[in-house]
């Protein structure tokens, strides 16, 4: 098990380092992620949503459904916690 774990770690490290050779350089303004989609949010959020904070605009509107999911995660954790800790436990 330990040996397998170490192999998995090394394999993971190798994969990640190998893959980074193809990622755009940090700060490169021509990276695909910067040239596609992201300009849309910057240019349009003020007029379409009306909030200067682009992150809020994306979070609250363009990708609002993710945020709903995220809130649901929090809620799930709450329900889970109530379930886990709320029953049959010694009060101290």
């Amino acid at each position, binding site marked *: 098990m330990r040996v397998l774990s170490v192999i998995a770690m090394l394999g993971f490290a190798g994969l990640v380092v190998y893959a980074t050779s193809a990622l755009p350089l940090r700060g490169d303004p021509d*990276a695909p992620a910067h040239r596609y989609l992201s300009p849309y949010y910057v240019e349009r959020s003020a007029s379409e949503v009306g909030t200067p904070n682009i992150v809020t605009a994306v979070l609250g509107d363009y*990708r609002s459904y993710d945020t709903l999911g995220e809130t649901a995660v929090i809620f799930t954790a709450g329900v889970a916690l109530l*379930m886990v800790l709320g029953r049959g436990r010694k009060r101290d």
Partner: protein
Amino acid sequence: MTPHLPILIILPLLLGAFVVTLCGLWRPRSAFPLAILAVGASAAASIASLVETARAGAVRYALGGWAPPVGIEYVVDGVSAFVATVVAAVALLVLTATRRMADREMGDRPGLFYGAVLMMLTGLLGIVVTGDLFNVFVFLEISSLATYALIFMGGGRAMIAAFRYLIVGTLGGALYLLGVGYLYFSTGTLNMADTAARLPEILDSPAVLAGAALIFAGLGVKTALVPLHWWLPDAYNYAPSPVTALMAPIATKVAAYAMLRMFLTVFPAGYLAEATPVATVLLVVGLGGAVAGGAAAFAQSDLRRILAYSSIAQVGLIAAGIGLASPLAAAAALFHVMTHAVMKAALFLAAYSVRYRTGEVDIDRMAGLGRAMPWTMLAFTVAAVSMVGVPPTAGFFSKLYLAQAGLAEGLWGVALVVLVSGLLTAAYMVRILERVYLRDAPDGGSAAEAADPPADMLAPALVLASATLVLGLANVPIVTRLLVPAVGP
């Protein structure tokens, strides 16, 4: 309502979870009917969307009114409508059947239990209908968190099993997220279809390969593919009965569906199979898991454990079907998703009916149950026969299609492993059935005084068992009219 169908699959569950939790806190008896109502509404929406997609093709739904790739979209095509229908319908039957077990084992606060169950289903169905890579992660975490807590409620060993699953499951989620990151920084988009459109220019990039590898590693944990499967037996074994009965048929299948989605929608056709070792690894791991899981199941004597290892084996077959990366194989994998969900649900329901009546889970102590609980065991037997893959049950046809898909690719090994796994399944199922039918109950044992459970537990098990027969006989229209067009190019 038709244009809203995709979100209507999710909304009843999500809103239902809140309502059930709130109402459950102050009126516990209302939790179960509300939960059933929510799941039923979701199942109805799923079936409606299945009809709609078969009639008019995929339904796309831009959440928030933002057209993708700017916003998140829900896509219900033939594949996702099919899987959603299977998941919702099986969940509905299982929830109905396990009400008494839930009352007994999850006792005093059903509101929280059903709230968590609905959140789990929200997460699973969310993964099924979404068309956005990051959204998959969010819903994966919703279902995972609910699952950890539900497993934990088994107490005792379940607690550590849940914790181990939490660590490895969250790691799986993080790996998936990292993989999505690689894809995002290579393409600049998170939408699945858009990713597929932008990937072809940069296919030889190592980053795309690493993204694919990480995504599949992450989903592999959730699917319980063989080197990453070790969390599953303990989790299924020690979790409360209703939880296992609900999880076992659908949870791993949805992760497998997500893998298939990667093949069908995200990566360009042929990329995973030809340019990367991902498909090959999936095939090998799946086939290996099918054999290893079957062999491991044979070595167990706890019925729940046998079924858990059997799940690992069957999921291996599904993964192999995905790894074959041909339309026929994908259809076979999807058909097996349905088949296995139905069979496993029937098996677990029967197993837990036994536990409900006698408290026994060890197959050596189930002697004579064939006489004591004839209908329960009839459901079990039919599902077991289907699991072995005897015609004309559904289990036979999913294996037939899989073997055919393998032969069509010129891969003998696939057909061979399918056969061997069928034999292994027969070996451990016969071990159980021999004890149940052919040994007499020991005097004074609890098995001797057992009787079939109440109708509300028995009926869903029988419905599921007969579904294996009906779906088997109706396999041709399902596969040729629904699945093959759905996965077709």
